[in-house]
């Protein structure tokens, strides 16, 4: 007998070889990233460069009403040229300019030798001349030039066509040049009047960012890269996912494979591993290609340069103030700009290669996403009979992945917390961004990865259930109806693992959304209780019950609806009486292990406020009885029944416990709630009755609730007010002994009747 891992490996090896021999996969995986992206980017950069150059080489036609206007404009352009020559000279001595302008063409100015200034004939309207496209722009000064006195202010009227790019360009440049000219005139006037230009800028604003240039650069990448990577991973995984499932079905090889003595789960595991491998190979190649492209095209300098415009150091501010008094030919704005640009270029030079260094971390963060994408695609494609059908199914999957990624990309303020922790795809996109920015919180990262892995496992299990199913395998065997129509469903004693995990995978994010909607401080306590109770019933208890009924799954067996034996009942009551002090001590001990597990006081107060109002009965119903019953039905009922018999009972206890813990939204609660979940699963499995775990669960919630309310109960349990220390006295030991006795009774005393295995 082969062991299962060896079989999965055999399937993996064969599928990988076959996939890599496929030209279509190679095209999508290798040719596109290695050839197409760089080619596209080079074309883009080249086009940008050409366009900038071309605009500068172009001759621009400016029309003015008379000679005085022409002379004035020539004077302005000559002063501008002088300034630029000075700047260029300064630059060439210090630093070689990069090939591509870091400010995306900002530097491009109007060269006076490329400008024709034409005087309009008498009677000709500038408006008509420009409108008939004889000239790019017309300029009229009011009052007209010539009568220049110190205190005369001119209004410059431009006449241009903003639909003509050249007309627009020359308008834009002249506007800037005249801005600089205005600066010069102001400066002259102020110096003449006061002898100093220091009064020109009474308030200088300057922003200093503590982020290093590398972090600033990462911020830009963090916006772009997750979205690009998500798209690439999906594209990479899509073809093998279709080919290994629907493609195999279409070519008739699925039947051959289905008839070989290999469990479907192992075939699916092998295929799934190939899809993830190809997705990751594709991501790695794309990322490598992107890094190389950015490096060689110097795109990073362009991007980072533009961003660093805003960051200045303190020295630059002082220098700027000093310069205000220094005699200068150029305007302050241009001087300052030149200086900034030099800094930028020096910084950009240091950052080259950042993408290459960040690549491995990003690649690592992409693994869970590739796992999830591969699993979902495998599940969806397993449903398809033909390649074409699978391609159609893929569209919504792609949209569902790309849209959240795109939305999150455009919401830079979103952090990895709350609902987002468990929101498929979006959580990974934000995680990658946080990794880029160096902000990732380990416990948030843990939940994000855990929930992603959980979704992935659920999807793989669903894929295994669908894959090789007769309705999918043979188109002549009726239709999918046999999967969904109640009449054709064969009664089952328990839900199958795929169904149990799928149930939780669907309810998980839905319930999270709902909970985050509930945690609204403005909510009235009474309404909060009703909504909470209803949501528990509708989202946690109703779906498993309805699904089990519809699929003809034995309700008694699935939900362990049995009357417990008297001894088990005694055990349950012992545990119910002692669970609060025991869990309190264990909770304090866990909190002492890591600050991550210490409860959030603010949150606690907010909840306590909602808890303390209203009648006692309403409170107990909403926070103890309803959750106790509903959560037990889902976790100890449906989920436990689905896993039982497929994995060992010990594994059932661990899996259900951890999922129960993660289901409770707050990170700091996970360890203690997981432990509670494990204990509840253990006693339900051993007693064969959900009543036992319900009693302990309700007792835990209600007595815990009472302890927050009543001093007497706290004293009875011996709970210290100081939550920072663990006080183990005689009373706590007594409760612990009662708890352990109850647990031992339930785990050691056998059930009265045996259930079907």
């Amino acid at each position, binding site marked *: *007998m*082969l062991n299962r891992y060896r*079989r999965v490996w*055999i*399937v993996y090896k*064969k599928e990988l*070889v*076959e996939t890599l*021999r*496929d030209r279509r996969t190679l095209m999508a995986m290798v040719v596109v990233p290695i050839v197409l992206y760089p080619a596209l980017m080079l074309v883009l950069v080249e086009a940008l460069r050409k366009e900038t150059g071309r605009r500068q080489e172009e001759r621009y036609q400016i029309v003015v009403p008379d000679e005085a206007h022409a002379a004035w404009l020539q004077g302005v352009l000559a002063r501008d040229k002088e300034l630029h020559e000075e700047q260029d000279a300064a630059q060439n001595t210090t630093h070689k300019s990069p090939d591509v302008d870091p400010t995306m063409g900002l530097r491009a100015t109007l060269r006076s030798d490329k400008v024709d200034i034409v005087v309009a004939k008498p009677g000709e309207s500038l408006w008509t001349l420009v409108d008939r496209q004889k000239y790019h722009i017309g300029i009229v000064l009011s009052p007209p030039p010539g009568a220049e006195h110190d205190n005369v202010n001119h209004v410059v009227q431009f006449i241009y066509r903003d639909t003509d790019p050249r007309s627009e360009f020359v308008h834009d440049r002249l506007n800037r040049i005249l801005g600089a000219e205005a600066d010069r005139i102001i400066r002259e006037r102020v110096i003449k009047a006061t002898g100093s230009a220091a009064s020109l800028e009474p308030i200088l604003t300057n922003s200093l960012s503590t982020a290093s240039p590398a972090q600033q650069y990462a911020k830009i990448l963090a916006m772009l890269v997750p979205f690009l990577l998500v798209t690439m991973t999906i594209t990479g995984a899509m073809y093998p996912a279709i080919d290994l499932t629907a493609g195999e079905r279409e*070519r*008739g*090889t699925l*039947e*051959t494979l*289905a*008839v*070989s*003595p*290999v*469990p479907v789960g192992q075939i699916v595991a092998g295929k799934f591993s190939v899809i993830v491998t190809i997705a990751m190979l594709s991501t790695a190649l794309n990322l490598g290609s992107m890094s190389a492209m950015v490096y060689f095209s110097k795109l990073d300098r362009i991007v980072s340069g533009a961003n660093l415009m805003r960051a200045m150091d303190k020295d630059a501010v002082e220098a700027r103030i000093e310069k205000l008094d220094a005699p200068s030919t150029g305007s302050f704005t241009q001087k300052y700009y030149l200086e900034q640009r030099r800094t930028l270029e020096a910084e950009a030079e240091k950052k080259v290669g950042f993408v290459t260094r960040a690549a491995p971390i990003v690649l690592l963060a992409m693994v869970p996403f590739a796992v999830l994408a591969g699993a979902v695609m495998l599940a969806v494609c397993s449903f398809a009979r033909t390649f074409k059908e699978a391609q159609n199914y893929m569209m919504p999957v792609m949209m569902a992945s790309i849209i959240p990624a795109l939305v999150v990309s455009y919401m830079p303020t979103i952090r990895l917390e709350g609902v987002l922790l468990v929101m498929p795809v979006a959580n990974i996109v934000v995680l990658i961004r946080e990794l880029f920015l160096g902000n990732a919180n380990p416990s948030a990262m843990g939940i994000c990865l855990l929930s992603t892995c959980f979704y992935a496992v659920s999807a793989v299990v669903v894929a295994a259930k669908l894959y090789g199913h*007769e309705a999918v*395998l*043979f188109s*002549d*065997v*009726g*239709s999918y*109806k*046999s999967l969904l*129509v109640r*009449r*054709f469903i*064969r009664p089952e004693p328990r839900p199958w693992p795929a169904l149990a995990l799928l149930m939780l995978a669907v309810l998980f994010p839905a319930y999270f959304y709902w909970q985050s909607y509930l945690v609204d401080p403005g909510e009235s306590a009474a309404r909060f209780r009703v909504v909470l109770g209803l949501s528990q019933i509708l989202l946690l208890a109703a779906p498993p019950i309805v699904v089990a009924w519809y699929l003809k799954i034995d309700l008694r067996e699935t939900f362990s609806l049995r009357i417990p034996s008297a001894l088990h009942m005694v055990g349950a009551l012992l545990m119910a009486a002692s669970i609060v002090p025991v869990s309190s001590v264990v909770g304090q001990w866990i909190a002492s292990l890591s600050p991550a597990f210490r409860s959030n006081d603010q949150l606690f107060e907010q909840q306590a406020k909602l808890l303390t109002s209203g009648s006692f009965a309403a409170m107990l119903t909403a926070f103890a009885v309803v959750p106790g019953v509903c959560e037990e039905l889902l976790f100890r009922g449906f989920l436990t029944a689905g896993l039982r018999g497929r994995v060992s009972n010990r594994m059932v206890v661990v899996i259900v416990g951890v999922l129960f813990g993660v289901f409770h939204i707050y990170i700091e609660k996970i360890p203690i709630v997981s432990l509670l979940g494990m204990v509840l699963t253990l006693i339900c499995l051993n007693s064969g009755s959900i009543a036992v775990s319900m009693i302990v669960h309700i007792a835990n919630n209600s007595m815990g609730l009472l302890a927050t309310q009543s001093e007497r109960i706290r004293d009875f349990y011996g709970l210290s007010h100081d939550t920072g220390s663990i006080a183990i006295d005689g009373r706590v030991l007594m409760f612990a002994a009662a708890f352990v006795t109850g647990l031992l009774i339930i785990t050691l005393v056998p059930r009265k009747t045996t259930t079907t295995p």
Partner: protein
Amino acid sequence: MVEVHALTKLFPTTEGGEKRAVDGITFHVKAGEIYGLLGPNGAGKTTTLRMISGLVTPTSGYARLAGVDAVADREAAKRNLGYLTASTGLYQRLSPRELLQYFGELIGLDRAAVRKRIEDLVRWLDMSEFANLRCGGLSTGQKQRTNIARALMGDPPILIMDEPTLGLDVLTNRVVLDFIRAEGARGKAIIMSTHYLDEAELLCSRFGLIHEGRLVGEGTLPELQERAKKKRLSEIFLSLCGKEEHVLDLGAGLGTLSAHSASGT
């Protein structure tokens, strides 16, 4: 070796009803026996064979392969089984040798056993010419030989062949029939379905005649001849399923049953 008991399969139809594709079929096949499952298109032969192979779950009834239930313990049941159909595809981008190695490894044979078995099958089925070419480029006959080799990799005691000679040229047809006969002689329990009744007459020791999901006749050729008072298998079949008159009206005497598939099945 193969026990089929009251095997029934209901399918949902597009109109919302359900169709009884296979209706209470029971038969047994002993080791060394070649059992012919005969019937027109849509009679339920393929569904029956798929239920026996564990590919389709019966609505009721059961099939046992060498004592193992085909549904309750699918993997163990399939270990006793070689399965071949006319529509079985091959992996286009693997060579026959690689394909055989894959299935050999999956069955659990060790490396040396896989190599030896492949060499034996390549020699026996005369595959050396194309054993290293990609399956995508093989002719229909070469593909079918590869498929036979694939079904025989584990040397299973039971063989199920659904239309194994459909669309084959005379030469390959001969190879396939010889191979079935030889495997029967080696003591394998073989169930084959076919349209070609002449072929079945030559090859099979017992027959099951299926019409509209039900077994209308079962037994050896002399037994069936005795029951229907007819000589040829095609006549026996038409007589047993009550279609004789209709066919005689058409002035038939056709060698295959496929032409009658339109007559209500």
